[in-house]
């Protein structure tokens, strides 16, 4: 394992490294990361979150990004980023390599979300996943009234060229977590303005009112591994603000 390097002196010159300029969901994710953590940001884009975490929280940050221009920009700004994708490149990492693995607004674009989710909680002690909620009322209403595939700020592509091939609702997501034995430690629902709400992700409101959800997940460590762990037996999620 790589030991943490002295990071206090590090100054990262990324395009966006100021918290005020971070996307709403990224700012919330950043708040969930403890200082000095080993963080892997999958789909790190231009490195905004990584740069922020490195500068403000002294994390030992790594990134994976699909677009070559994104990777080159990140590395050019002193971030440790590789070109790759969530479907193909997570298997290489050892279990528990990171304290936190972040997958923001990327799950819906993966080929095999279930495998990706399993990989996330394997290589990270915790995973933070954010995704657009297809159960959002405007999405539902748009489809109901207009009869057209929904498009929004979060889902800006027409159906024929969208990279988002595996969209899901918050309920779908929680059901998958249950199915593969992933514990939801915390969840936040974001409305259209990016305001966070602590809504029970298993309730109807979150699924209706959240434009996107952010989930903190934890896999079962080898010690407590039990394939048949009943999902229903999990403790209720503490509300978060």
């Amino acid at each position: 394992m790589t030991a943490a390097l002295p990071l206090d002196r590090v100054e990262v010159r990324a395009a966006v490294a100021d918290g005020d300029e971070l996307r709403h969901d990224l700012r919330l994710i950043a708040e969930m990361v403890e200082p000095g953590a080993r963080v892997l940001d999958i789909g790190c884009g231009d490195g905004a979150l990584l740069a922020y975490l490195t500068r403000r929280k002294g994390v030992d940050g790594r990134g994976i990004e699909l677009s070559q221009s994104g990777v080159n920009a990140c590395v050019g700004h002193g971030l440790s980023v590789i070109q790759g994708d969530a479907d193909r490149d997570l298997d290489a990492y050892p279990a528990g390599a990171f304290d936190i693995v972040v997958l923001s607004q990327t799950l819906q674009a993966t080929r095999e979300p279930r495998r990706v989710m399993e990989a996330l909680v394997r290589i990270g002690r915790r995973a933070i996943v954010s995704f657009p909620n297809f159960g959002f009322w405007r999405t539902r209403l748009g489809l109901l009234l207009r009869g057209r595939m929904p498009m929004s700020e979060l889902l800006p592509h027409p159906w024929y060229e969208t990279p988002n091939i595996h969209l899901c609702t918050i309920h779908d997501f929680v059901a998958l977590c249950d199915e593969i034995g992933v514990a939801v430690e915390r969840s936040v629902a974001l409305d259209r303005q990016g305001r966070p709400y602590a809504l029970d992700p298993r309730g109807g409101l979150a699924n209706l009112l959240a434009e996107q959800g952010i989930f903190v997940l934890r896999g079962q460590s080898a010690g407590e591994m039990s394939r048949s762990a009943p999902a229903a037996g999990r403790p209720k999620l503490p509300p978060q603000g």
Partner: protein
Amino acid sequence: MSTIAFRRRSRSDHDWPGHRLTVRDPLRLDCGIDFGPFTIAYQTYGRLNADRSNAILICHALTGDQYAADPHPITGKPGWWETLVGAGGVLDTERYFLICANVLGGCMGTTGPQDIDPATSEPWALSFPVITVHDMVRAQKRLVEHLGIDSLFCVIGGSMGGMQVLQWAASYPESVFSAVPIATAARHSAQNIAFHEVGRQAIMADPDWCGGRYLSLGRKPSRGLAVARMTAHVTYLSEAALHRKFGRNLQDRHAVTYGFDADFQVESYLRHQGSTFVDRFDANSYLYITRAMDYFDLAAEHDGSLRQAFAGTRSRFCVISFTSDWLFPTSESRQLVRALNAVAANVSFVEIATENGHDAFLLHEPELFETLRGFLTGCAEHRGLTR
């Protein structure tokens, strides 16, 4: 008419500029021989800081040498990495202390097969021990120790230089703060060994090679070496680059001549590459260095596990490949990155889009420069290096 013309040129290698280190304590080579004393010829640029923490070792490729940023003493051409090295450059001589040494087995001042074997007072020729990339790195380690440097800020190089970078990172991880292997692989592929074998056979088929004893006999296998270079040179380019540069254009004529002159520009170009190469390179050196590359297989040193080669590493890696490089394709770099990820190493990986093929690492590639500058600056901040 259809063959290549050569200039006669005598090699007098001992008045070439630069530093020389005589290593007296013999080096145990992979082949089992204790080799020495021997000489390492090297160049330095910039100044070593008081902490001795700003040294960058530049590793050269197969036909490169220590003159990374000086005019070549034989050809007079600019240094092979002059685009990167300089005050304010990517390899900033105001900030870093750069070292570049001719590899063991080379022909620009470091001991190689063209030098005199003290036992026989004849040139070594084929009695020179077969050396490996690991041996080259062992020799460099002696030089770095001689310079009083415990830990290199960075080891950087392309192609065979990249192999040395990987060997450094695997063999002396505590001495490598950061590593930049460019356009390289953790092992030489079958295809690459095949091309090297073509080159070696071309040299050996030249009657002037004389079983390797050409120097003692006052001869020079220029034709064989030129053909080896021509073959290799094609592998350094890409189909797209060749097409863009030459297409099917004819050389100083309007029609084909129905003969074997260099009708096409691409032929003329390759012949030129071949004939100028023999002025500056020794044929036996070419045999030995290509062999060292062929033998390179980092995983083999670690029970077949590449990840094991890097287990526990704390070095920061920046792996770089080029889209049109078919000699060391991106897939090789990706394999390396996966092995590094498997041990949770700190690794960046950039594939640069270019038509320039394998040779891209020697050329003006703005994106390469930007990547290197960003990576090195980030590392320098982690290392606490100030300007």
